[in-house]
């Protein structure tokens, strides 16, 4: 347990250092969410300036997802391209533990999106921003972390097992913005799409963060969102466990790790 924790923390530290100077990540976590926030400010706040905090949370969520999607896709594949995957798989530490540390780094850095968006809206555009229910909001942020990490742990082996899926990565960015209700409610979407939103932890994260920041959250709403995030995290982890077994099987039994 302690050994695994040390691996997670070491990987986390290394990956934070790498991502902090990676211009692709800087774009995904800082520039793109800020530009989306600028657009949303001019689109949404023209009519209703009280939506400032909604824009901050929503654009921050886009940064979280973009970072998770792209880093998740390349967490394992990047090691493969650099020729370090075999070394990691052969080491006594599990591949999943290493990927968990890398995903934790992405999620942690991605919260910068929300902080930068907050700064943009409050300092540059001078919108009054208040978090109406601060305690539930910050607890919701904490619950969001394992939900996103488990989602990232699902994405990484999925993309490693099926390399052609990584070609779809650009097409997967906006659907989560839409189905997750990051910047508009999913009520705008057709009813048939709602079940898709319900099985996505980012949807529940956006829902509870929007509700607690704007002050519209009831206790039952909050508990429902937290509960769904935890349940979905468990499901993602179970699916991820199966996928990591497939990756390891290909590495150790079929010896096709570099050829997948």
């Amino acid at each position, binding site marked *: 347990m302690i050994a695994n924790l040390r691996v997670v923390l070491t990987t986390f530290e290394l990956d934070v250092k790498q991502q902090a100077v990676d*211009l*692709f990540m*800087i*774009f995904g976590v800082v*520039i*793109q969410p800020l*530009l*989306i926030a*600028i*657009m*949303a400010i*001019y*689109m*949404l706040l*023209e*009519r209703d300036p009280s939506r400032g905090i909604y824009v901050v949370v929503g654009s921050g969520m886009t940064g979280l997802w973009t970072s998770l999607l792209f880093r998740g896709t390349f967490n394992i594949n990047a090691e493969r391209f650099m020729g370090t995957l075999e070394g990691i798989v052969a080491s006594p530490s599990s591949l999943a533990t290493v990927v968990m540390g890398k995903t934790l780094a992405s999620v942690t850095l991605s919260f910068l999106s929300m902080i930068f968006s907050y700064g943009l809206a409050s300092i540059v555009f001078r919108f009054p921003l208040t978090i109406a229910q601060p305690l539930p909001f910050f607890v919701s942020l904490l619950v969001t972390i394992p939900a996103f990490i488990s989602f990232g742990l699902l994405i990484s082996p999925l993309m490693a097992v099926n390399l*052609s899926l990584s*070609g*779809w990565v*650009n*097409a997967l*960015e*906006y*659907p989560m*913005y*839409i189905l997750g209700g990051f*910047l*508009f*409610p999913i009520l*705008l*979407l057709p009813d048939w799409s709602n079940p898709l939103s319900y099985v996505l932890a980012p949807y529940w994260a956006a829902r509870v963060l929007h509700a607690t920041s704007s002050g519209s959250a009831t206790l039952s709403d909050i508990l429902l969102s937290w509960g769904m995030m935890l349940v979905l995290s468990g499901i993602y982890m179970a699916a991820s466990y199966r996928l990591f077994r497939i990756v390891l099987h290909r590495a150790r039994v079929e010896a096709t790790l570099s050829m997948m």
Partner: protein
Amino acid sequence: MKSLSNSMRIFLGGAVLSYKALFRWFRLEPYIATKIIAPLNQILFFTLLGSFATGRDTASFYAIGNAIQLTAMSGIYGVTMSIGGERNEGTLIYLFGSPANRLLTFLGRALVHILDGMIGVVIGLTWTGLLLGVDFSRADLPALGLTILIATVSTSGLGLLMGCVSLVTVNVMFINNTIYFLLLVFSGANVPLANFPTWVQHAAYALPLTRGIQAARLVISGSSLGEVAPLLTGEALIGVVYVLIGYVLFSWFEVTAKRRGTLEAY
């Protein structure tokens, strides 16, 4: 005559080869994901966001704006990578060592991407008609075609300029991503220009696509080619200015790199 045909061969051959070099690794599935599904997702997201902000009646404003803006996918990413790829693949040294006409070589890098970009816009507009109820019944289709062509050429002009930048930096994707999103914000695709401060509006008119998107909206709503001609002329001129700046930089980088022996050094 022989010189002219040789120039055309270099122009067309270079155009096709640079496109193939960029996309030959693609299989059909990722190509569909990148060129058909991803654009649809962008159109849907911003149209829904716009509808949420200003009401469902305004959906066509966002749908058309984003469909035209899609040309930046080929015009910025494609064209830039066609030029930057010469350096990444180690072929720049041969290109600059050849006696081929530099202007034709330079412009040829954009040709197939212009066609590809136009197809992308047509696909985008088709999505808007099929899924978002954009009405094309009053549109002058030849005028719309000309608008798409001019907007695409103009955007590719900026792409050629960015391609030159890619010869002196390793961070070209960061620059491309930023340019693509700046166009999304400031070209009027999603935010009416009148909403921005005056100085931002002036800057927006120095970008490609700004007038092209306006013209496309007008043509689709029933305006004639004559009515949008000033916008299209402005859009074309912006494109020419970017191409000229790009070509001057391209030539300057070649001379400087050869003189300093830094052709492959970033």
